[in-house]
């Protein structure tokens, strides 16, 4: 019996314990090699990507302007693709359509050094001290490679991540239709947006933050220009938008074409760039809404506060009619059905009905995210996505919130707006007015 004990240092398992090791060694090795070969040979690295075209916009324009079933002539598609690739480059090699003139004020809009740091695949150089590909590292999973707000995780979030391509931003110091300032964008990225998936990035070094701000502007401008180009080509009847000089595979070829486009004063493309889109980004700093002096009465501790808030309440339920959307916390209210501009942009297209899924199918296939109602803020909480400071609330109420149903208050005086600010602030205090 002793002789039957295997001479092992420790009691070795019988073959039944790990049968697969014994019988299929060859198969395991073959599998491992197959996986290695497949991975080395087969897959697509995250370099050499291209910006996706705004198919939703194109589909919408076709529905508006063309006979049913008619699609844009493919040669126009080629032209728009070539112009876009030349003006703005690719996700890895970004470019920007600055005018030929070096002195031009358009050059202040953004710095290409910044954009280059934020663009491209995630990477580090200088022993890890310089990080590249910041946008793909921190933002693209939500906001998408082109900034269409439809990154891989977008559908699980509500509100959806911002689609930068409309050039609309919610929380800013400028009036409607004027782009946000750099400080506005930096504030959002640094502090995030409470109650949404938009994170705060407290650890970003200032130069990386600045790079991301410029990249957001870059994507936003790129998106606006693209929309206008689609609009332009859907108006043409056969005559070309531009003559494309052959294949534009290399960055040099694209650069040459870009220089040609921006120095042609009569082309539709320069009109879009230099008369329409870019000027708004240059002017934005001059068009910041002046908040003026903050009256003492908006501070909760102030003795004036209750008077301010009481007046604000009158406005809220009366003249300003805030109550139609917000209701007063604790009181029953009907919630109106609203969609934001990023949804309304395409669901207002003839033939589309938000209540009938079938009518939206083509748009959703083209990349649109299914419509979701936007809900007015619950003012029972002292939580404001654009910031709770008196100035921030003043700006929200005065300018409205761009892209949302929240309207600007053109008919209200400054004092009235401050009274509303006081009332809004009083709401979380549980009716202390």
């Amino acid at each position, binding site marked *: 019996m002793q002789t039957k004990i295997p001479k092992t240092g*420790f009691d070795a398992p019988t073959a*039944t314990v790990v049968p697969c090791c014994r019988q299929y060694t060859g198969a395991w090795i073959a599998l491992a090699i197959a996986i*290695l070969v497949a991975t080395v040979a087969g897959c697509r690295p995250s370099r050499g990507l291209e910006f996706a075209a705004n198919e939703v916009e194109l589909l919408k324009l076709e529905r508006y302007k063309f006979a049913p079933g008619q699609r844009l002539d493919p040669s126009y598609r080629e032209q728009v693709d070539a112009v876009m690739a030349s003006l703005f480059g690719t996700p890895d090699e970004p470019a920007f359509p600055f005018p030929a003139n070096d002195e031009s004020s358009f050059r202040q809009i953004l710095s290409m050094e910044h954009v280059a740091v934020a663009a491209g695949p995630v990477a580090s150089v200088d022993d890890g001290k310089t990080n590249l590909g910041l946008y793909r590292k921190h933002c693209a999973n939500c906001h998408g490679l082109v900034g269409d707000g439809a990154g891989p995780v977008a559908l699980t979030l509500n509100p959806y991540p911002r689609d930068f391509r409309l050039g609309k931003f919610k929380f800013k110091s400028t009036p409607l239709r004027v782009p946000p300032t750099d400080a506005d964008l930096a504030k959002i990225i640094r502090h995030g947006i409470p109650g949404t998936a938009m994170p705060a990035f407290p650890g970003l070094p200032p130069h990386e933050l600045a790079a991301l701000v410029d990249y957001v502007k870059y994507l936003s401008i790129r998106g606006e220009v693209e929309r206008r180009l689609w609009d332009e080509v859907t108006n043409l009847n056969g005559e070309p938008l531009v003559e494309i000089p052959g294949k534009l595979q290399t960055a040099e070829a694209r650069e040459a074409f870009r220089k040609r486009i921006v120095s042609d004063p009569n082309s539709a493309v320069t009109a879009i760039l230099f008369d329409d889109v870019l000027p708004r980004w240059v002017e934005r700093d001059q068009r910041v809404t002046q908040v003026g002096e903050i009256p003492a009465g908006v501070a909760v501790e102030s003795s004036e506060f209750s008077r301010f808030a009481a007046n604000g309440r009158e406005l809220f339920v009366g003249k300003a009619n805030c109550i139609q959307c917000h209701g007063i916390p604790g009181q029953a209210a009907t919630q109106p059905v609203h969609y934001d501009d990023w949804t309304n942009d395409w669901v207002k297209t003839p033939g589309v009905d938000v209540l009938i899924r079938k009518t939206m199918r083509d748009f959703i296939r083209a990349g649109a995210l299914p419509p979701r109602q936007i809900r007015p803020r619950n003012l029972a909480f002292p939580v404001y996505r654009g910031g709770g400071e008196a100035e921030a609330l003043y700006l929200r109420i005065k300018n409205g919130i761009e892209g949302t149903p929240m309207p600007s208050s053109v008919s209200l005086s400054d004092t009235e707006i401050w009274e509303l600010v006081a009332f809004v602030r009083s709401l979380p205090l549980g009716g202390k007015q």
Partner: protein
Amino acid sequence: MMNEQNSASPSRWPNRWGKLLASVSFVLIFFGGLVTTTVAGMAVPDWPRTYGYNMFLYPFYDWFFGPWDLFVEHGHRLLGTSAGILAILLVIATFRATRSTTMRRFSVALLALVIFQGVLGGIRVLRDDRLVANLHGLVGPAFFALVVAFCTLSSRWYSQNVVRAERRQADFGRAGLFRWAVVLLVLCYLQLAVGSLLRHVDVTISPRGFPHLVYTHLALGIFLMLATGLYWLRTGMLANTGLRWQIHALALAIIVQVVLGLITWVMKYGFPWWLDQYLFAARFVVPDKTMQQTLLVTAHMAMGSAILGLWTLHVVRFHCLRTKFSTATSPRAEAAAEPMPLGT
């Protein structure tokens, strides 16, 4: 015969190296998780060198006190290499300790796997490829689980205590329970696979797939929690100390894991919108790449591997007990069935 077996004085070294390897692998997995959580995978562009240096000669100061991304990525590489060295020592120890082809092949397979994993990691960096990153993230836990299995098979528990301690138990051979354990082990790995896909999203993919992955991960997580709970209840019948502690540990771990999973979601994407009628949700701001986020998210990932390891340990032990019983006529089982002093 007793003396015979004692004087053979089984070498503890394969088991010791195995345990060390398992511990290092776990830390390695945690570091790998940190790399993914903080998107530091490309912090060192070359491989196998680090910024042109031989990996081991990279200045300690620049690494340890350098930028975070470099710290985790280079640290991950150093740990990976240590795991490789340990695996070599494990093979040597095993070949010296036993003639069992199964164990020898097992140790060699572990070494092969750790090399394979290292090469995958290299390809992941050189090609910056998400698919490889996924695979790399899946081989890691599998390797860890296999090392745990190796430790169990080379353990003193296995070689000495098993039959003596469990002989009195008639119940643990119940096939139904064992099958459950195996199914749960497999599902647990599947869950890790889904989790890996959730963590390695590619910016170019359409958003349509992600919600399905999320729901799968959620459903499987809930199922695993309930099934583990049931398993825990059922195993009350197994008055078997060699198995029971793992079941308790698993039951506890899975609860912690579900909580960590929910925290992970919130830490990355905030609370679901329908909770915004609560102040804590309405005012929550996702704290991206903060230490708090990084550690909690990575803990969820590492806990997954820990649970996989626990299941593996449990299943292997369970299997050993069952086979010992069912092969009670085998020479070894008979030999071991002789009375044995305790505590050898």
